[in-house]
């Protein structure tokens, strides 16, 4: 299916990442957003509050993040494409409903424009400290998808990707910008609607009485319904059977949770979006994501001008983490440096995947300012000394 031409703002724009994300959501078919104001994410919903009444959408500013994170799931079960938008402390409040989305297999997009924490932290300044929160924040075993854009253009492009993945995988999908990317102005090309691929919800064609909401009828995901189709479904955050009814036993739990995890983990390759440059035969490869990937590109350029064989891997997909990709990188380079705006989160995943094959180093900082390219260059020199 293609995007709706009446809604897509086709053309060249000079806008920031937050606005680009809002336009991406619109292009992807999002027509309902519930949110609660929090810096530095609020411009996303402010933009949609203006745009929605002109395109048949609705924004509601809820009483808090907890309400927002379940209100939009009510809209999803009504058949809409919907999302919520927040930042670190707000996301912390939403965590129970990340679990609900995982358990009920609700196609849910959570936009998280990261700021520095913990707690109220640094409201107006950037960080990449929510990487582990989105992965592990809600209790229980479940899998999520998380993408991290590096530019306003990617904010548009991958906002669309996030909605498409949510429909396909029926799990929580996080769009992890940071303050820098959210507030960064840049050129954004919004293509014509017929060039934007939009995933449709896979609504069941089975008749009421012949349909069980959590049964797999082919493919990897159960077919969905929306309220009002006549199927009289029941959905619950409790462990449930294929009918959606509570099933309070270990066998039902094991069966359900393994499926919820494997429906994402079995598709790691398909879900991996990354860019690798000059990795083969390099002495050092930088692994980075979000704004830090752009800084790292500059640092790699500086190092290469100094004659260092340096490569770069920019991760767009943070979760699920691609172990195979990391092992391949380790086989092609002599050292890995992970650069991120925290004191070490994704570096642990890289270390785990690389499993000692090559040394893994961290250039990290506690947020509040982007990682300086000079810090990465200094680390490259230190590693190669």
């Amino acid at each position, binding site marked *: 299916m293609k995007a709706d031409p009446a809604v897509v703002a086709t053309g060249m724009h000079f806008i920031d990442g937050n606005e680009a994300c809002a336009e991406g959501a619109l292009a992807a078919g999002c027509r*309902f957003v519930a949110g609660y104001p929090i810096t530095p994410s609020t411009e996303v919903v402010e933009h949609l509050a203006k745009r929605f009444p002109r395109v048949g959408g*609705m924004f509601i500013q809820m009483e808090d993040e*907890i309400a927002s994170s379940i*209100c939009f799931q*009510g809209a999803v079960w009504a058949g809409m494409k919907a999302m919520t938008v927040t930042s670190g402390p707000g996301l912390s409040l939403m965590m129970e*409903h990340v679990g609900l989305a995982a358990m009920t297999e609700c196609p849910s997009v959570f936009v998280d424009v990261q700021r520095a924490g913990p707690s109220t932290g640094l409201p107006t300044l950037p960080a990449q400290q929510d990487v582990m929160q989105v992965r592990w924040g809600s209790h229980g075993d479940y899998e999520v998808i998380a993408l991290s854009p590096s530019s306003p253009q990617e904010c548009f492009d991958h906002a669309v990707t996030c909605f498409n993945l949510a429909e396909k995988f029926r799990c929580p999908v996080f769009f992890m910008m940071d303050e820098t990317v959210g507030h960064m102005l840049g050129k954004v090309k919004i293509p014509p609607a017929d060039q934007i691929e939009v995933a449709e919800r896979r609504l069941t064609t089975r008749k009421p009485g012949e349909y069980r909401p959590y049964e797999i009828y082919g493919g990897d995901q159960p077919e969905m319904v929306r309220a009002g189709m*006549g*199927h009289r*479904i029941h959905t619950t955050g*409790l462990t449930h059977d294929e009918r959606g009814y509570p099933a309070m036993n270990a066998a039902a739990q094991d069966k359900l949770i393994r499926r919820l995890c494997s429906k994402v983990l079995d598709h790691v390759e398909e879900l991996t979006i990354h860019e690798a440059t000059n990795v083969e035969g390099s002495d050092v490869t930088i692994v980075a994501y979000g704004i830090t990937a752009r800084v790292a590109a500059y640092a790699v350029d500086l190092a290469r001008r100094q004659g260092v064989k340096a490569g770069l891997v920019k991760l767009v997909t943070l979760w699920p983490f691609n172990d195979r990709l990391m092992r391949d990188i380790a086989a092609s380079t002599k050292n890995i440096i992970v650069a991120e705006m925290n004191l070490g989160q994704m570096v642990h995943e890289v270390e785990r995947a690389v499993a000692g094959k090559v040394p893994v180093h961290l250039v990290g900082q506690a947020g509040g300012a982007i990682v300086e390219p000079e810090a990465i260059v200094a680390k490259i020199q230190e590693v190669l000394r």
Partner: protein
Amino acid sequence: MSEAYVNPVEKLLRTERIPHIWCPGCGIGTSVNCFARAIEKTGIDYEHLHVVSGIGCTGRVAGYVNVDSFHTTHGRAIPFATGLSLSRPTSKVVVYSGDGDLTAIGGNHFIHAARRNVDMTVICVNNLTYGMTGGQVTPTTPQTAIASTMPYGNYEAAFNLPNLADACGANFVARWTVFHVRQLVRTMTKALAMKGFTFIEVLAPCPTLYQRRNRLGDGVETLKYYKEKSIIQNGANTAGVGLCFQSEIVVGEFVERQRPSLREEYDARMKAVLKDAYVPYEGTK
């Protein structure tokens, strides 16, 4: 069995899920019986009726009613129902939950949904205690009553729920006990047909935890208490209907007003400002 012997409420129930989890003497089932009869009276198409609940004994109602039903998280049925209701304007959305769920953890959502006048009917089965977790104090437990976390008697002031809903602007506010089954059916029928936020408090016994701990006898004893101590006072000032321990209970339909619902306010405002440029949010039909 001849069809004449089929229970008239059976149509609304997921009979394959019976027996239910509720204890003997519990009032939740009676309230569901009234709800089913009210649904029949309104003639709402089952396809266009959705029940949302939170957590707890009353939260399990969603699992037993044979309509699209959503058993959500603790205290958050109302915000889920808000998204559902706004996106399904042709459906009737009912939130069915207990006092702890709706007014403690869910208290903030309750007042804001009433303030916004979201199209939904909220049924609060108030048994004055947390049933599923073992009889702890709730915001509606009367002062001096014993609860597992108030072993020396509750010293906190209790919510007067009709007054709270009224003050926030709910379109309809009523209270009955599960003794008043006919009145309850009538009131539910009325509330289900109304626009905006409608609220019904249903006092119900919890013999296993509240009544036993307070030496108030069984479910039947409680129904006798409801019968003897209830005063029907339609249109009563909600400020005067607060509950004290084993006191008189003012019941009836207290508030009925015609404030525009959230959807109507949104439409009116956008039409006024954007005129022809306004494209209404239709959700799904």
